[in-house]
């Protein structure tokens, strides 16, 4: 048996950044392998894009359908596409280990391009673990994949996605019962100081205003400057309560959709020990990359929201730029070609990203959600509360990793994905040490649970390699 050829580039994630990167590299004749957890390309933003119905297209709108050419143009003959592939280990030596259809495999790539995108920022508030409470992104995934829409749901939090999903729910004939928004008028005036910088993105700004007009026209109740948000219920969500201008409100609902923006998915970059930086505005860590998306390790690049939240359009440009740079590093193209073909892309990216300072200021998450207090659950998997984490500091706990020993926070199956940022923030607040110095959980493989059967299949493959 001839061993399979080693790919020049392994792209992990088939969202906008990964798809663009794979196309760019394959266009230069490079051997590309594209791995993704889903059964079809698109990532979360363009989820199910190749199979969505005309009706879904109408409801989801042009920002969704814009992703179709990207997914449709993937040349499955020249790119080794691996759907349903869950990557659970990546090494700095270029080894990528993944499960596909119950079998574990390991492949070496000369260069690895991580395009693992974002996940919802943790939204730790009282009652957020009750059944019936989901992320706004989850509701959108149900709409994209299964044509399901939430009925009489309450949206709570802040960020552009909150308006987008409200507009989509209206288009689907199920307007939200209410929108509870955390941004304050102070935040609005603060953000206005960035409006000049956002001018190149006037089309995006206009789109946002149109969404808000649509929500107003549908008569959806909006509560702005909300605080003390709490989801009430014993066995499941029954109501949501909150305070606006000193007055407490209560709305009955069995479905609450939460959103406070998204943060980079850093599981792989952390497990690789790459350098990360704390982003003061976006309140999260992101891996450090240069203008071409190269990480602190020479053979590893990062593109898209996984490198810092800039949205789908920027992800596409960054994917192409990072792929081009990777090929230059591998001597498949010259650095002159790289510079030439990425010049316009870098300009477009800069223009597209100009809106971010405005959005970051306008929709900054409130302190009570970044650094919760009391009995609010922080670590969903192990049911560790904010008070618990704070008490560990009094007992001498110095960093996120030590909280694991004190009370198992971050040790459940989600591996800290939905508590890591919160634990860093709380420890920083309690100790007075900057989040950058506090750091984050140490992440180790397997990044997703692996069965013994899958491990055995990997062992069988390596045995064959040794004996053949």
């Amino acid at each position, binding site marked *: 048996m001839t061993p399979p050829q080693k790919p020049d580039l392994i792209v992990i994630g088939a969202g906008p950044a990964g798809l663009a990167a794979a196309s760019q590299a394959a266009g230069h004749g490079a051997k590309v392998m594209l791995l993704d*957890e889903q*059964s079809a390309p698109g990532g*979360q933003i363009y989820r199910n894009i190749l*199979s969505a*119905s005309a*009706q*879904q297209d109408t*409801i989801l709108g042009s920002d969704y359908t814009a992703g179709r050419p990207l997914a449709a143009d993937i040349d499955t003959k020249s790119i080794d596409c691996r759907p349903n592939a869950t990557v659970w280990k990546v090494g700095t030596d270029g080894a990528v280990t993944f499960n596909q259809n119950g079998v574990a495999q390991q492949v070496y790539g000369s260069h690895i391009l991580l395009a693992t995108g974002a*996940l*919802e920022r943790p939204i730790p508030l009282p009652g957020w*673990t009750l*059944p*019936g*409470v*989901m*992320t706004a*992104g*989850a*509701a959108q*995934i*149900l*709409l994209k*994949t*299964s*044509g*399901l*829409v*939430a*009925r*009489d749901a309450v949206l709570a939090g802040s960020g552009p996605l909150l308006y987008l999903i409200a507009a989509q729910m209206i288009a*689907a*004939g*199920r307007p939200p019962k209410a929108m509870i928004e955390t941004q304050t008028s102070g935040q609005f005036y603060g953000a206005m100081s960035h409006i000049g910088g956002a001018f190149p993105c006037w089309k995006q700004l206009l789109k946002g205003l149109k969404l808000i007009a649509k929500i107003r026209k549908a008569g959806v109740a909006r509560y702005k400057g909300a605080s003390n948000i709490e989801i009430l219920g014993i*066995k*499941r969500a029954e109501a949501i309560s909150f305070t606006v201008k000193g007055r407490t409100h209560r709305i009955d609902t*069995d*479905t609450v959709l939460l959103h406070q923006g998204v943060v980079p*998915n850093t599981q792989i970059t952390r497990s690789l020990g790459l350098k990360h930086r704390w982003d003061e505005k976006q309140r999260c860590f992101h891996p450090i990359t240069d203008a071409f998306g190269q990480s602190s390790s020479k053979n590893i690049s990062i593109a898209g929201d996984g490198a810092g939240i800039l949205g789908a359009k920027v992800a596409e440009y960054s994917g192409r730029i990072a792929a081009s740079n990777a090929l230059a590093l591998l001597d498949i193209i010259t650095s002159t070609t790289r510079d030439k073909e990425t010049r316009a892309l870098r300009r477009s990216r800069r223009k597209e990203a100009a809106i971010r300072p405005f959005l970051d200021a306008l929709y900054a998450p409130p302190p009570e959600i970044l650094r919760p207090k009391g009995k609010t659950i922080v670590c*969903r*998997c192990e*049911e560790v509360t904010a008070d618990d984490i704070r008490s560990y500091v009094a007992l001498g706990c110095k960093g996120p990793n030590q909280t694991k020993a004190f009370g198992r926070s971050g040790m*459940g*199956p*989600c591996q800290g*994905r*939905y508590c890591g940022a919160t634990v860093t923030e709380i420890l920083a607040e309690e100790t007075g040490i900057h989040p950058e110095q506090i750091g984050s959980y140490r992440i180790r493989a397997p990044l*997703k*649970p692996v*069965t013994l059967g899958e491990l055995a299949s990997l062992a069988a493959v390596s045995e064959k390699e040794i004996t053949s």
Partner: protein
Amino acid sequence: MFDPIVPNTDPNAQVHFTFDGESIYTAPNTSVAAALLAAGHTWFRQMPVSGRQRGPFCMMGTCFDCLVEIDGITVQACVTTVTEGLNVTRVPQMHLQEGKFK
């Protein structure tokens, strides 16, 4: 609760499975989590220590609150596609306590 934007009434375009013995029909290529939510189920698992109930939170394979059991293995309902005749159950709590977690 969740409603379909287009009710799936075509009997030929339906897949059948069971959840704790209950018969459920769904469209092809639906995740177990979406099918259960559409059938009105809100909680999927119980926390091993507190016994509190949980339902899907992220729908993208990252939170693990949608765990169910299929063929004796604990899987994430949101990343598992329904196939004809699938036998899905809630994870018996003892399994989690005995550390048989996938």
